[in-house]
């Protein structure tokens, strides 16, 4: 019997070797790939159990993880249920996807970025739960609040940049939403809330400042056009174009008009300076035709059009059309036709003018801080491009000051300070309400802040209101808040 028994013993040992092997394969060899399998809910749970870092504005949390009494240990809490910061922070759901900074800075917030490797090892050794890093934003809470208040009940967006650094000082989009609705651990409730927000005709989930449907810029595009015209060296503020009260676009039966009707300030011809100050369409259509599509496109690209920009939130690229049709070129030369922009793009154009022709890369994250608030990573200002010369910038600034002080942007004036600005009133289609714009900066001689304001639906006045009535006062309120600091 012993011989048989020895053989059976060998079989038993082989069976156990198979088990030792299979458990080793699962728990050691393949453990990494099994851990990261999307179906491994434990990894998901664990990512919630590590305390996610807060999102800070001026040192104060606007999003933070607070203890919850369920298996996820922490729940995300947003301090502004009115949604003032929602377009920036986005939301952090259990498993329904994230947006905003929550998504763009997820690795830092969860502490899983490469920079955190040593901390993770320490956490394993000491048995502590790893904590995520804090993300400090460039937002100035006073300016953000001023922009939020100034926009009032309008649908639209406000973007404020520091032209010298590219820091985003304020970013408001309305209507907004309460991100806490989507941070609950009750997945069914979250899905129901999400569907409700999605079905809301006001599109509260859309960040209009950078990622909404693109807008027609209307006359704010003339800042870019004027910069290109002057910087090309072929035009000066005194360059003249014919001054009819209506112009039929070549090859079409469509006539274009100036916004006030009639001609542009009287006279046979009109200068670029006057066309800019009075915001006339017909002269700009002619200037654009003379400068040419390719040159304008080159400048548009240098200002950021058509480029993928992450701030680190992804910004929808703005569009300047490449066309061989003169009529489309002429329409797009005063911000109509096929020009489509984000408010951030308009602010970037103005920021380049304000910063002596040098465009700084817009950025929303100031620094990443360790859980005990030591600096781990900071983001220094980065140059995006130099679309125009300092000389051009200075000239365009003068034209923009004139536009506020003596022209179409009169409602942006601030007592005792020169404001450089440009309004816009974009047409959207037969009978559709206008899109109202303002962009500018102050003080004009030492710009502290660049602003772009967009108001949808004609500010509630259909086709009867213009940018100077609705958008310029909003910008003025925000710039006053900047200057009072």
């Amino acid at each position, binding site marked *: *019997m012993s011989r048989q028994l020895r053989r059976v013993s060998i079989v038993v*040992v082989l*069976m156990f070797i198979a*088990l030792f092997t299979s458990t080793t394969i699962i728990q050691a060899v393949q453990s990494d790939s*099994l851990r990261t399998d999307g179906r491994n809910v434990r990894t998901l749970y664990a990512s919630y159990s590590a305390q996610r870092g807060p999102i800070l504005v001026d040192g104060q949390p606007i999003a933070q993880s607070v203890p919850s009494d369920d298996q996820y240990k922490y729940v995300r809490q947003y301090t502004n249920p009115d949604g003032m910061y929602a377009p920036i922070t986005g939301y952090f759901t259990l498993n329904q996807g994230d947006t905003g900074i929550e998504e763009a800075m997820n690795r830092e917030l969860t502490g899983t970025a490469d920079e955190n490797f040593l901390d993770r090892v320490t956490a394993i050794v000491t048995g502590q739960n790893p904590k995520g890093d804090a993300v400090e934003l460039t937002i100035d809470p006073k300016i953000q609040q001023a922009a939020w208040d100034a926009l009032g009940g309008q649908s639209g967006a406000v973007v404020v940049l520091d032209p010298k650094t590219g820091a985003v000082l304020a970013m408001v989009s309305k209507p907004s939403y309460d991100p806490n609705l989507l941070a609950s651990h009750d997945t069914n409730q979250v899905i129901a809330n999400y569907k409700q927000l999605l079905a809301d005709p006001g599109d509260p989930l859309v960040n209009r400042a950078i990622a909404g449907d693109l807008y027609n810029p209307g006359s704010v595009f003339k800042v870019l056009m004027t910069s290109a015209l002057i910087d090309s060296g072929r035009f000066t503020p005194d360059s003249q174009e014919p001054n009819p009260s209506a112009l039929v676009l070549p090859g079409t039966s469509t006539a274009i008009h100036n916004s006030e009707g009639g001609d542009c300030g009287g006279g046979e011809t009109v200068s670029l300076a006057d066309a800019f100050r009075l915001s006339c369409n017909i002269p700009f259509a002619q200037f654009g035709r003379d400068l040419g599509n390719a040159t304008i496109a080159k400048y548009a690209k240098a200002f950021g059009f058509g480029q993928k920009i992450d701030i680190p939130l992804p910004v929808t690229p703005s569009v300047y059309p490449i066309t061989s049709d003169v009529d489309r070129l002429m329409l797009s030369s005063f911000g109509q036709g096929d020009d489509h922009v984000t408010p951030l793009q308009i602010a970037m154009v103005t920021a380049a003018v304000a910063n002596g022709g040098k465009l700084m890369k817009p950025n929303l994250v100031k620094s990443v801080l360790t859980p005990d608030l030591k600096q781990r990573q900071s983001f220094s200002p980065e140059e995006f491009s130099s679309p125009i010369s300092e000389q051009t910038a200075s000239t365009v600034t003068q034209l923009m000051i004139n536009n506020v002080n003596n022209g179409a942007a009169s409602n942006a004036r601030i007592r005792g300070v020169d404001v450089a600005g440009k309004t816009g009133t974009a047409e959207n289609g037969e009978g559709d309400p206008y899109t109202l714009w303002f962009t500018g900066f102050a003080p004009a001689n030492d710009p502290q802040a660049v602003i772009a304001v967009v108001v949808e639906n004609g500010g509630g006045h259909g086709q009867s209101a213009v940018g100077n009535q609705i958008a310029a006062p909003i910008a003025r309120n925000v710039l006053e808040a900047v200057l009072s600091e």
Partner: protein
Amino acid sequence: MTLGSDTRTPPLGSPAAGQRQTITQTIRVRLREPARMRNLELGLLVPAAAIAIGAVLLVQLGALGTTDSGMLTLVSLPPIFALVIHIALRIVARDADPFLVPIAVVLNGLGIAEIYRIDIAQKTLGWDGAGVRQIVWTLIAMAIAFAVLLVVRSHRVLQRYSYIAMAAGIVLLLLPMLPGIGQVTSGARLSIGFGPFSFQPGELAKIALAIFFAGYLVSNREPLSLMGRRVLGLRLPRARNLGPILVVWAAAMVVLVFQRDLGTSLLYFGLFLVMIYVATGKASWIVLGLVLFVGGALLASRVLGYVEGRFHAWLDAFDPSIYNATGGSYQLLQGMFGMANGGLIGSGLGQGRPQTVPLASSDYIVPSLGEELGLVGLFAILGLYLLFVSRGFRVGYSGADDFGKLLAVGLSFVVALQVFIVVGGVTRVIPLTGLTTPFLAAGGSSLTANWIIVALLLRISDTVRPPARGVAR
């Protein structure tokens, strides 16, 4: 009382002289003599009890953050019962193997701790919890084992009841198929229910069948060893001796087809094959048996959807369509994910998420432990099983009589095979089948059966080492 130099192998069937002594005499003699085996056992029981109670303490600290003295009192009862068994062994089986009880106490204790841990996660505590019920079942199982030790004073008695054991085994096997008391759990017909109680008679059947196989094979090994014609280089058994293997094969197939339970079927058939091979020394029995079983199983997998499903879930576990299918690989993968998250050293007791896997405290107790104790913990558990089985095989090598040797091998092999089928199933070595993990998994019938196996192995092993110091029994 006679002195004998060769008390090692008393003649088969004749009780040893010592057994005629009065009990008081026996006790007096045994207390006077040093009992090395028992002292070793006592020494091992201390750390075993510490592990069993300490595991529950760690679960409480890990999952509750506090201690619960009520539960700690309850879990200290099984080690106390083990101490009672230990004292009884000093009297009724002084030379029994010293490792079996401590190993069973550790495995049983780890099982209780993990089941209790999953209770905490599922918030089913107190008498509703599987953990408390497992403790009660442990006490019942240990009491039955105690009774077996006292009643069965010599394992040779069992040989006389071989055919009764066969009848009992077959009845137990077929019981779940009786209308009225049979119950269907996750597709398999394994348990019988009386009101709130349910029991898996198949667990006990494996002991009855091991006793029958041992008795039958010891009496019939000569004719079974004779070989007939040569086919394909293999000497086949004589046709007239094929009866038993065909009967057992048929029984295994009945279990497979009607109770829809591949694991139990494989367990019984594997047990029979190993025992007939050990008894006769003819490998052709194994070849013949495997051909029969694999053929039957393949046929069944074609006919029976559930067997085919198990094979798909095994081979293509990561395929999303199989993962999402009813009866697919969801549970298997979730168990493996848990083990992977446990990694080398585990999350610590009470600090993982084993409750994520369905049946975490019964069929999936090993992945649950793997998640919280890590690869290190699973190696220790597998090592304990291997040690347990090797102690049984040791009886097979140096036992006093063929019936005892064969029975000891059968009982320990059935534990080894069951561990292989369950752990192999949850770690993708073989297709998943629904068997309980001995001592660990929640369930009273399994605990009872395995503690009876402990009692029987203790009893048989007592004959291996008679006192060598001139004091006969």
